[in-house]
């Protein structure tokens, strides 16, 4: 009975990650201090930390802007991706019609349509959410369509002999079967969602006082404020990692049957 209880990582499970990050930072510090690179080209970690400390308020405000974009954009992508996946699963003709378009949508360089999106929806947050969703919905769509199709075909048959309707067969068999795959898609979406927010901010004009970390990084990198650009980037990275693990935790909660008993890859 205890065999299936998911093992939660103990206090030491973060150690390898911390050791590796520490070693990389140390190497970087040594190279930046002794390698003869200018600070405008590669700031040392201590200079980045100082820039973060000195510009904490600016970076924080831009972070809240970007974080809101990522979270809402991802929610939009999840909603659209899941709904479209279910529709494509239930209707093979629709799948044949829509799938090539969905793949093609991933090849569109966002700045091409940035102006159009602003023309439609103004300078607010919504055009940015659309850009993020456009970039993020695809992994959710593909993993969910595959997850729905991978259901054991005997399971719906069994449910039919128990007099289940199509909807009930979907709800009891296909939907839960696809959930782990959909959540994996969400984790991939999140990883590209942060860079999606960067693309969204830099490809749609804005009038806001704080335009987000992406805008700040572009401005700083162009204005020889390299250390501040690195500081903003460090915040983006930390945010992406935190969100990724939050989703992994959600996966554990929502689909405990799909968590491998050796859960140390998460």
């Amino acid at each position, binding site marked *: 009975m205890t065999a*299936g209880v998911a093992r939660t990582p103990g206090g030491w499970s973060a150690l390898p990650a911390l050791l590796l990050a520490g070693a990389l930072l140390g190497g970087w510090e040594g190279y930046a201090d002794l390698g003869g690179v200018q600070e405008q080209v590669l700031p040392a970690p201590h200079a980045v930390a100082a820039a973060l400390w000195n510009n904490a308020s600016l970076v924080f405000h831009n972070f809240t802007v970007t974080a809101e974009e990522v979270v809402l954009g991802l929610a939009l992508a999840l909603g659209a991706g899941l709904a479209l996946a279910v529709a494509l699963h239930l209707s093979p003709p629709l799948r044949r019609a829509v799938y090539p378009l969905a793949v093609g949508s991933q090849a569109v360089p966002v700045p091409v349509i940035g102006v159009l999106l602003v023309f439609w929806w103004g300078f607010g947050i919504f055009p940015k959410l659309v850009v993020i969703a456009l970039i993020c919905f695809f992994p959710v769509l593909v993993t969910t369509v595959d997850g729905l199709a991978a259901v054991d075909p005997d399971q719906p048959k069994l449910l*039919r002999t*128990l007099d289940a309707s199509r909807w009930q067969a979907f709800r009891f068999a296909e939907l839960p079967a696809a959930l782990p795959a959909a959540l994996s898609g969400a984790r991939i979406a999140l990883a590209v969602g942060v860079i999606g927010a960067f693309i969204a901010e830099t490809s749609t004009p804005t009038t806001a006082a704080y335009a987000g970390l992406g805008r700040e990084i572009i401005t700083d990198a162009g204005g020889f404020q390299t250390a501040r650009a690195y500081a903003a980037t460090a915040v983006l990275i930390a945010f992406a990692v935190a969100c990724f693990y939050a989703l992994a935790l959600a996966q554990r909660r929502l689909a405990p049957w799909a968590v491998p008993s050796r859960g140390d890859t998460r």
Partner: protein
Amino acid sequence: MSTQLQSRVQPSHRWAGEREEIVLEGVGRRYRGRRGTEVRALSDVSLRVGRGEMLAVVGPSGCGKSTLLEILCGLAQPDEGRVLSCAPAVLMPQRDLLLPWLDALDNAALAPRIAGHSRAQSRRHAALLFEELGLAGFEHARPHELSGGMRQRVAFLRTLLSGKPVLCLDEPFGALDAITRADMQEWLAATLAREQRTVVLVTHDVEEAILLADRLVVLSPRPGRVVAELDVDVQRPRARTDPAVTSLRERALDALGRDQRR
């Protein structure tokens, strides 16, 4: 318990409600093989099963036994012959097909939930039978935490709770080891002695068929035809070593082998 469940059963339009719950006449079924060639799964099968009777269908692998059950459960239509009468039937498939995202109680309670009862109500319903079927203490276990025998018990309970009068069991113990299988055969005999249902048991184990069933039908290799019908007139509980059982086994094996030599 069982009467309450039975009352929900809606007789199908094919079912006249007579004493014989299943009447098949000359039923045959073909399907397209992988290379487009036609495979005959069943040929000219005529069967009658009375209410409360347990019929065992014995035959070599691939003789269309599972196809026969699919026809009885309405999952497939015969290409030849007719289903003259068939009460509502539920299938217990060869693989238990428990849903990994539901615990044992939810898996067993699937039929009442599909019939529109609330989750809590359905679980209470199933929980009443858990003790009786030797499943007490495993209510919250997920399928992967259960042994093969326990999984079959949950799958059987799920089948039972559908409330349908006819149970179609497709090699229910085929995947179990010999010791567990012997336990499960006793368990099934005891359970069915309490829950009066009409049962069609498909198996390739002749001994299992004789220990459990009232009557035996022996099918030939594909396309499956009825080559022998044997009444099992032996007092229950039956022992493997009972001379009546062993002599029936010889007759059944003889019928199986005789056909293979032809």
